[in-house]
């Protein structure tokens, strides 16, 4: 499937590289960013970077809306881009968090037009069980220095381990991970849960759940910056 991805930023480049260099059915042909952000996008991106979203729609059959949650002011723009994509008959894969009403509306339009609207978000995770010991090897990565791009590290380690023949699953820190069939750590573990011992239990339980679902040889776990 030829895809465009929006809104493109340097944060999303490792995921674009991963997708385009893997055997994924998705192929990102264009990364679209707001005009003012164009000069900030790194040169080593593996696809064209453009600013005209409407024109890019003509060159794809699927639009990937990536996680943008650091930029609150983009929400209305994201909604309008989703609606425009559906209006022009494009499938949508959305990793950005949407309000319930907007999600329902987008799904409604997609159903009506017989298009695919895939909403890839964190699991709604509630249970805390007892501590379980994993069978898989777990590799933790995190950023101690601002210059280290842990998303890039995360994608490259998973890719390399898979190439070496290990069944590898990643658990990352933002919803863009779901573009590369990885999981995203539920925010709840680090925001709602106050006590450290409870956080450990939640994290362990989440990892255990991933292990039971995917049976990987290796789990690559990306820690949010504040938890390293």
């Amino acid at each position, binding site marked *: 499937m030829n895809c465009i991805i929006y*809104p493109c*930023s340097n944060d999303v480049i490792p995921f674009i590289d991963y997708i385009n260099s893997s055997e994924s059915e998705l192929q990102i042909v264009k990364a679209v*960013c*707001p005009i*003012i*952000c164009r*000069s*900030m996008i790194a040169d080593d991106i593996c696809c064209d970077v453009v600013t005209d979203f409407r024109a890019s729609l003509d060159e794809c059959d699927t639009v990937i809306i990536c996680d943008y949650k*650091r*930029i*609150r*002011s*983009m929400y209305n*723009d994201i909604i309008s881009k989703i609606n425009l994509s559906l209006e022009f008959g494009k499938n949508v894969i959305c990793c950005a968090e949407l309000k319930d009403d907007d999600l329902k509306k987008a799904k409604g339009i997609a159903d009506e037009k017989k298009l695919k609207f895939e909403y890839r978000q964190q699991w709604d995770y509630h249970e805390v069980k007892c501590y379980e010991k994993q069978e898989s090897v777990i590799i933790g990565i995190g950023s101690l220095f601002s210059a280290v791009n842990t998303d890039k590290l995360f994608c490259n380690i998973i890719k390399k381990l898979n190439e070496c023949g290990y069944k590898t699953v990643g658990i990352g820190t933002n919803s863009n991970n779901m573009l590369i069939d990885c999981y995203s750590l539920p925010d709840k573990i680090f925001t709602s849960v106050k006590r450290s011992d409870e956080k450990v239990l939640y994290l362990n339980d989440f990892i255990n759940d991933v292990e039971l679902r995917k049976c990987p040889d290796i789990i690559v776990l990306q820690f949010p910056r504040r938890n390293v």
Partner: protein
Amino acid sequence: MTWEVAKQAIDFFAEHSKSFQSPTISFYGGEPLIVFDMLKKCVKYCEELFLGKDISFFMTTNATLMTDEIIDFLAEHRFHLLFSIDGPASIHDINRKRSDGTGSFASAFSAFKKTYERYGKDAAEYVRINMVISPVNDIDESFSLFDDKFFRNNNVVVSSSLADDEYLANKLTYSAEFEAKYNYYYFLSFLNEMKLVEGIKLPPFFKYKMMVFKREYLQFKRGINSLPDVTTPGGSCISGHSKFFVNVKGDIFPCERVSEISECMKIGNIYEGFDYDMVRKHLNVSQLTADKCKNCYAMLHCSMCQGHSDDNGKFTAERRLSYCKSSRNVFDSKIKNCILLKETKTKYTWRP
């Protein structure tokens, strides 16, 4: 400010911050809420123009014009707000009066509380108070503002500054009583920090000052090996580099704190761009006093900015040197604080 000037200033900023992910726009007055419609228009335009960037808005306000509609707008656009509240009504109302001569404390403080509540759990991060302390007022009375139960129930961030007489014809005088009381609060802050005395009641910003002292102490501990071959005294910014201020005519200044009527503080305008000759003069303002600065023990810790060399529109050495004593006093105080923090944090072991 007309919309044309505001728009051009925003465009100028966008053009000069292309590689910056998190631009910030601050609104100053007078009182920015006098032109609330203009402010709304600016915010809308910025959000469109900077779409994709993490833009933040800041505003300093006296809160006298705050309404529910305005509070909702500011909260919705996550404005960082600094409320100017100088103390309880008896202090605040001395300098902050309405056009009819009545004091503005009651409405300002009420608006502050309402805004704080409207921001919910993010309030401490976004809604703050700045208290200007004037030496002509009783400092204990100023601080009695914090006896209000609102401050007991909420962790409000309060900053303070001593009244600035930089551009006043009649300079402020600091009485011995004021200085004694002010320093006593510092003394209490240290006691509190050292946990030598329990139950000390302190105005909120003294806790912040202690954090600043600790940060300075850590910098002090790191030290430096030697002075670089080429350097400049501390204190001055690189004019126009990390921020700039635009006045109603579109003239550009290094920041909002310098005089807008001073020719030497003007570093360009939004139509013709930066005046690089003037920016160069700002960068090299310390050359006016190079010999003295090179031999000054506080050179790297100097707190004088370009504005301190502004002598009625011209940079002069005399003007700059007139601030040396107070700048060195600030540095001396920092050293004293660092020594005190070091001494009290050091555990000595007796060895026979």
